[in-house]
């Protein structure tokens, strides 16, 4: 029941904030803070409960669910309120709450108009995202998947910057249309499973084994793929991201970059590949090609921008390309790498957006041609921005590096060509990150403005995040131990054949003789 409470607390917190804001906006912020902290406590308690249930041996090895809640919702259609958490979902829920706190702190000073409604939307997005990470009923997953959109739309449309109408509508239509395609795939799966076994249900665990004829399976898989690729975003479907990020308020961008993109990645790992293992295997080269294209294209696009926020938005395209690559490499290493990349990208890009937000608060523009020479006035902001710019270019010692490297280690095992092209991304990411720092903080001062440095509150938040990103880079083992049983479970569920791990000595002759494209975990 704790899982349902996690979502309910967020929803109730949002509503309460909306009403309380009428008397005193500060109370709205405090209720949200309290709700998030309560949620954090709940999520952490899930962690310990997981331990107790499976004895001190730590998390269950076979990826069984830590905690499960299965209540019938619409019995006529076989829809149930099926929430469950394993290592992977738990880590992502914790990330949701963590970034929720960060966005709350960034909105503390930035949002002054209509505070109540803002925090209502903020909390409901977080509830939707937490719901996506926890739901195991395909209908419920789709329900939360769409529910995230509306508050996010309001966040961008009302509190956004100049071009917010266009950006918010574009974001909404992109995600909604692709979501509907996913709905068709879910329904197709529902009916085929029903026809095969007579058991009409949307429950993920029961839908896992459906035998679908390849000619139909390709379309069902494509429906899921497009929905998750739009959300991820992979290259051909990415053009909503720069607009939405640039126009969203800082808190919105943090949630958009930190969490919404991750729901797409989570969808790939949890739903797409386990449900259509063979089709995903055949589709893997195309998907990995798109992933590599996103890495390169995102980096080149980022380098060309002169709007600072748009630049950071484009970097997300590049970083998410690594996640897609890792997911479709579909082996232990690559999945762990994808998870590390998800978490560290959430933190680093979230902080970059926070810094851009504070820059914009001070000089009221995002145009880099006007910026320059900010370092003398604001060395602390420069330092923090530098740290996270370095994190985004994959400097070792920080989470992003480990994420990208593990992904490439895993991908190399599947297909070396993709790994080599993808590692080109290191050079390109260096170019845009350093170029960004050069044009904003270094060089002579172009605009005639005085910039005050970070306040102690902002500095405290940044310090926590710097510690987090470095802790992820230097000692990621706890995160990996939480998630690895989940990945074993998922890989087991996907019933993929296991290639011999190159333990010591050369991998067996045949492992290398097989065509390079076969998907080996």
């Amino acid at each position: 029941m704790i899982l349902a409470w996690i979502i309910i607390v967020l929803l109730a917190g949002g509503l309460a904030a909306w009403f309380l804001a009428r008397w005193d906006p500060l109370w709205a912020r405090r209720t949200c803070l309290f709700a998030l902290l309560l949620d954090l406590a709940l999520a952490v308690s899930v962690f310990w409960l997981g331990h107790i249930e499976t004895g001190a041996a730590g998390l269950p090895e076979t990826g069984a669910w830590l905690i499960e809640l299965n209540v019938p919702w619409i019995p006529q259609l076989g829809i149930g309120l099926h929430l469950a958490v394993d290592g992977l979902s738990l880590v992502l829920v914790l990330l949701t709450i963590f970034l929720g706190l960060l966005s709350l702190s960034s909105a503390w000073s930035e949002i002054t108009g209509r505070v109540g409604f803002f925090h209502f939307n903020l909390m409901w997005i977080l509830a939707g995202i937490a719901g996506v990470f926890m739901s195991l009923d395909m209908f419920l997953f789709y329900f939360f998947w769409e529910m995230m959109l509306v508050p996010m739309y309001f966040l961008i449309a009302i509190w956004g910057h100049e071009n917010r109408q266009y950006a918010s509508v574009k974001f909404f239509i992109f995600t909604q249309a692709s979501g509907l395609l996913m709905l068709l795939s879910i329904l197709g799966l529902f009916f085929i499973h029903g026809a095969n076994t007579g058991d009409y249900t949307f429950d993920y665990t029961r839908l896992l084994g459906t035998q679908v004829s390849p000619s139909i399976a390709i379309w069902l898989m494509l429906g899921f793929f497009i929905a998750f690729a739009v959300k991820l975003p992979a290259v051909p479907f990415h053009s909503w991201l720069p607009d939405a990020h640039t126009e969203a308020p800082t808190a919105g961008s943090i949630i958009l970059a930190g969490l919404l993109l991750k729901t797409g990645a989570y969808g790939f790992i949890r739903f797409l590949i386990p449900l259509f293992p063979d089709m995903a295997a055949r589709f893997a080269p195309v998907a990995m090609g798109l992933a590599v294209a996103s890495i390169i294209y995102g980096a080149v696009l980022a380098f060309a921008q002169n709007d600072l926020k748009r630049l950071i938005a484009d970097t997300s395209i590049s970083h998410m390309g690594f996640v897609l690559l890792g997911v479709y490499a579909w082996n232990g290493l690559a999945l762990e790498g994808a998870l590390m990349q998800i978490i560290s990208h959430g933190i680093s890009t979230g902080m970059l957006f926070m810094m851009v937000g504070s820059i914009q608060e001070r000089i009221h523009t995002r145009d880099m041609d006007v910026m320059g020479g900010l370092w003398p006035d604001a060395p602390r902001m420069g330092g923090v921005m530098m740290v996270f710019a370095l994190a985004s270019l994959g400097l070792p010692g920080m989470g992003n590096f480990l994420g990208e490297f593990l992904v490439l280690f895993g991908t190399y095992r599947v297909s070396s060509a993709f790994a080599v092209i993808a590692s080109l991304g290191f050079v390109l990411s260096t170019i845009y990150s350093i170029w960004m720092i050069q044009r904003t903080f270094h060089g002579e001062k172009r605009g005639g403005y005085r910039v005050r440095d970070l306040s102690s509150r902002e500095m405290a938040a940044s310090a926590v995040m710097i510690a987090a990103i470095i802790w992820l880079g230097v000692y990621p083992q706890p995160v990996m131990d939480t998630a690895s049983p989940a990945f074993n479970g998922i890989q087991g569920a996907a019933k993929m054949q296991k290639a011999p791990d190159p333990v010591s000595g050369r991998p067996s002759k045949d492992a290398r003789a097989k065509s390079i494209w076969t998907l080996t975990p």
Partner: protein
Amino acid sequence: MLELLWLIPAMPFAGFLVLATAGKKLSRTGAAVIGAGSAGVSALISLIVAFSFISSPPAGNSYSQVLWEWVNTGGLSLSISFYLDALSVIMVLVVSVVGFLIHLYSTGFMARDDGYSRFFSYMNLFVGSMLTLVLAGNLLLLFLGWEGVGLCSYLLIGFWYRETQNGYAALKAFIVTRIGDTAMAIGLFLLFYNLGTLDIQQAMGLAKANWPVGSGIAIAAAALLLGGALGKSAQLPLQTWLPDAMAGPTPVSALIHAATMVTAGVYLIARTHVLFTLAPPVQSAVAIIGAATLLVAGFSALAQHDIKRVLAYSTISQIGYMFLALGVGAWSAAIFHFMTHAFFKALLFLGAGVVIQGLNEEHDMFRMGGLRKEMPATFWSFLIGAASLSALPLVTAGFYSKDLVLWDVWSSRTGGNWLWAAGLLGALLTSIYSFRMVFLTFYGEKKTPVTRTPGPVMLIPVIALAALSAVGGFVEIPGTMGNVPLFSGFLETALPKMVFSGVPESELISQIIAAILSVGGIYVAYFFWLALPEYARDFTKHPAGSALHRFLFSGWGFDWLYARLFVRPYVWAARVNKRDVIDLFYSGIALINRLSHYALSATQTGKVRWYVMVLGFGAFITITIVVFT
């Protein structure tokens, strides 16, 4: 005492943390004490560790210390572990001692500069990363140090961030080295895929056991690691960033771009020598690249005006020697040359720093002169450094190391007369440009007044390094003069012995020839730039001469080539696609919708009769569809 090993890199990192967080509140002296202090303590500990390693060598001549488990998932098990053997003892000694001296020097050099604590935090971070690189037990930790060092070189080159030129130089350095690092990363993937582990000793053992000499995998792995080494050690074709890196403060150039970072590539090849022995073509490529680089850099150094750029090109050239030695399998000779080079090149940079500050930031040698009397101490130590660089026979450390390299090249199985000849030509060029520099800066009449004389804290390191440059060579007395191979004996525990094919007495011949060339070079420099300076000047006026001068000045036009080949196309491609061409596709769809809206709403004319006509027409179509299909 070997347990203190982890303290060596930990101290500078701690210094960095203190300075980065509390930098603003510290006074100048406080920052200096912490900065130089942490480097000093690290140097002290490394001396203690080295002494205990040499006096009572641990089992198997190596000691490894595991701190904590870094990554253990899906077949990849790595830990933060340090590995100490003879090779890394020497590297640690050189890095920490030279580093400490340079820290001491920069407390004086940077006295008048704001951002004092920021400078020392970056320097500490650099020393920490370099020590991690040198001591790393597995390749991924080595890569961490490798990138950390690249980052610090970016931060320190662009330390005076106000001028955008420095920013661009730092950007260029970081990107070019990053290209090399990517190659190395791919090498890591390949090694892990094929060997299953990244622990260096394990990997090398497995490689030797499983891979036949000359197998494709070994060649690929060695080539990729070589790519990484080329980027970091500024060898052809990735050497363009080092001359521009002189935009940073001089102690930075001394520490990073002379003594330590640029030799990281040498260390990497030495550490993974097993791979290179398994891939002979790649090893000979290393030799050829080394030879080519030392010639290119040597010639370019001749035409430079800025004193620091001369030293930069000279560094590239000397590292070319080390690569040459590695290429022919003379592992210990390369490391020996690395050690001596670290001493005299750091000395030359620090001397240049004193000169530049004395003439309030005057870099052009042709506007210096006659400083012999003004700064005697600097002059003498600078002279020792230059002599050691040009391998003045018997007296200087440079002689012992460079001649050992030359002789090994000549007498090694894979070497050859051509490589040896290139080495000799390079030796000649070296002595010419080093003494050209000495004569231009310290001899002739004084062109700019000296405004600032160096304080004691700057002179002590210079003098210490001068001593090391003179004495440093006696560690390895060649066969012809008593044969006291202390240094290579010590290194044998870590690196394989040199395979001789030539006749032993040829060593004397090569030493004599090298000595003649070195002295001859000094005379040539004296002739052109002191006795008949106008002869050199009108040589450059002559059209062919000036073209050659410009060609050499620009470092053989690599910058020009790369700008056209890579930089401009990439910038053009980015700018062309700024509006994101894929977005046009989606706005096209939106346009179609808009047009069809206006077309359809035109049908809503408001006239009833038109509505009835449409109704009738609709009925007609319905009937035809129903009846006739």
